[in-house]
């Protein structure tokens, strides 16, 4: 068999017999070609979408959430309804103890985010109003902050010594500094207090309400500056990767209600926004797309291969006499069968490879067109090589199987009947 497959004459036979009717061969091939093209284009796009979402959310932990305090809506333990609640720094420790699924918890304060103006920032002649955040270093574990070369985010010593240091945004830098000026080590005035710039963070879109002009200062410095004491505006919380974020969210709220003496039934006392759940949905969508593309692709490939089988069946019928002559001249049934199966496999393979190349071309084209569109979640559309090889393999196997039908038909006719055929 190997000798047969690698024999030059075998291929010459195949080429001449499929080259005999070029138009039909091409139209047949288009069936499979289209199938694999659709498969590659779809699954590549699904992957691109997947990558796009990944990129959009890469700066935020996938299973994170925000929790903030609101007002009670049910009277409880002697308190009247409508009591305003305030998160405290101590809540963080309690939560970490009672809800073991929490990996990181970052208490945060902000000025200028939830109503009220930002802070006045002054540097020399330049001024501006920007949002100020009081943060712990652990915040970067939940929402990755890309810091430009040479800079850093707030560290533990900044917290301990209540240092007056800040991390500014790209836009802040543009507005307060000259273009060729390095802001690192320079001082800016935040609400009349001098802060040293230790880093510039790169803005990545898609991460909630943060912007490219935010200024981060140590939490401890913030509370001293704005006299917030133990108060916390909200918690940013990241759960461990493999836990149910909805359950964690529920546990956190229950714990907070107990600590703050709120009715366990009170749904409005604490607000929360669960990024994990949202990510889960989006990622589920992307996964669904991948799965859908797989199903659609395979279905189209099967349809194409069946088309090849169909055409070969017609071809065999047309070639009945020729095959009869071949057998009269000494072609064994095995040789006739092998030739037809090989034709089928060859057509399928060729169509498949052309389809893969065209599909890859399309993906490359789309990628080039969407490269600069940062708000469009579509990055680096690829189809993993094992999937491509798998698709090719499926096609070869299907081509082989579908080729068996015409091949069997070709040898099932006795040579004498084949010769009589007009």
């Amino acid at each position, binding site marked *: 068999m190997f000798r047969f497959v690698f024999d030059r004459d075998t291929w010459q036979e195949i080429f001449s*017999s499929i080259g005999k009717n070029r138009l039909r061969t091409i139209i047949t091939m288009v069936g499979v070609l289209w199938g694999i093209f659709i498969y590659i284009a779809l699954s590549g796009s699904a992957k691109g979408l997947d990558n796009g979402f990944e990129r959009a959310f890469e700066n935020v932990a996938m299973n994170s959430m925000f929790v903030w305090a609101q007002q009670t809506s049910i009277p409880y333990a002697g308190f009247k309804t409508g009591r305003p609640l305030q998160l405290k720094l101590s809540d963080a420790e309690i939560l970490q103890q009672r809800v073991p699924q929490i990996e990181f918890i970052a208490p945060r304060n902000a000025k200028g985010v939830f109503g009220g103006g930002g802070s006045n920032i002054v540097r020399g002649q330049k001024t501006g109003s920007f949002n100020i955040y009081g943060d712990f270093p652990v915040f970067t574990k939940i929402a990755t902050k890309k810091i430009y070369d040479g800079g850093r985010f707030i560290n533990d010593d900044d917290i301990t010594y209540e240092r007056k240091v800040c991390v500014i945004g790209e836009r802040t830098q543009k507005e307060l500094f000259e273009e060729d000026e390095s802001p690192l080590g320079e001082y800016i005035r935040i609400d009349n207090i001098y802060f040293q710039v230790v880093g510039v963070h790169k803005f990545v879109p898609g991460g909630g309400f943060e912007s490219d002009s935010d200024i981060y200062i140590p939490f401890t410095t913030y509370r001293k500056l704005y006299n917030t004491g133990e108060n916390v505006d909200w918690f940013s919380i990241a759960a461990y990767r493999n836990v149910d974020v909805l359950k964690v969210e529920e546990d956190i709220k229950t714990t907070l209600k107990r600590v703050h003496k709120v009715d366990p039934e009170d749904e409005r006392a604490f607000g929360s926004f669960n990024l994990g759940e949202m990510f889960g949905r989006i990622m589920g969508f992307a996964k669904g797309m991948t799965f859908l593309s797989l199903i659609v692709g395979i279905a189209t490939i099967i349809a194409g291969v069946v088309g090849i089988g169909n055409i070969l069946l017609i071809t065999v019928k047309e070639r009945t006499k020729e095959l009869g002559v071949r057998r009269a*001249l000494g072609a064994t049934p095995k040789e006739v069968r092998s030739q037809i199966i090989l034709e089928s496999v060859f057509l399928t393979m060729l169509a498949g490879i052309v389809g893969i190349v065209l599909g890859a071309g399309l993906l490359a084209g789309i990628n080039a067109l969407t490269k600069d569109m940062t708000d469009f979640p579509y990055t680096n559309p690829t189809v993993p090589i094992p999937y491509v090889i798998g698709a090719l393999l499926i096609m070869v196997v299907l081509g082989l199987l579908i080729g068996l039908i015409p091949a069997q038909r070709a040898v099932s006719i006795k040579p004498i009947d084949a010769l009589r055929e007009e």
Partner: protein
Amino acid sequence: MIEINDLHKSYKMGSNVLHVLKGINFSVKEGELVAIMGSSGSGKSTLLNILGMLDTMDTGTYMLDGVPIKNLNETKAAQYRNKFLGFIFQSFNLINYKTALENVALPLYYQRMPRKERQDKAMKYLERVGLRDWAYHHPNELSGGQKQRVAIARAMAAEPKVLLADEPTGALDSKTSYEVMDLIQKINQEGNTILVVTHEPDIANMCKRIVHLKDGVIEKDELVNQVMAAEYV
């Protein structure tokens, strides 16, 4: 070369059984040129098909060059056909998308002969039928007589023991028919055993022996004075 004893063959046509060959006893020696004659339905084509291992017999024995031809499966039959027999058909049966040379080389391909050797040999036989210059033409560029000559070259290429010709001149005009018969006679003179099925008396008379078949039995088996086709060409 060919030994046939008490050969019977019948076909089932629905509920009827058509007894086509009713006990044929027949032998052919090496170097003979035998015509099998008979009207249509006499069983001459069936006999040729059985001789050519394209069809099976019901009862009887068939020896070809000392080899019993019996209970062959398709693969074995194909190999025997390739080794022992060369076919010449009424409708030439050349493969349209192959050149004359490739057509002639086809039986050699199934003998697994290396490519170069195969082409040289095919070219040699094309030359013998006078079509060397047409080697790279496709059948549709050839005349009927040329096609049949290519077919004869193809039949001879594998150097078979016996050439079987089924109405080789049936699709040709008389002038071309005589040319083809002239070629067959020449091949026979070189020592090849040839069986020709025909219903044309003039063609049959160009053979050395005529076997008359009627209603499935041999009516007459006679040696004749061979008419040389070259006289008419």
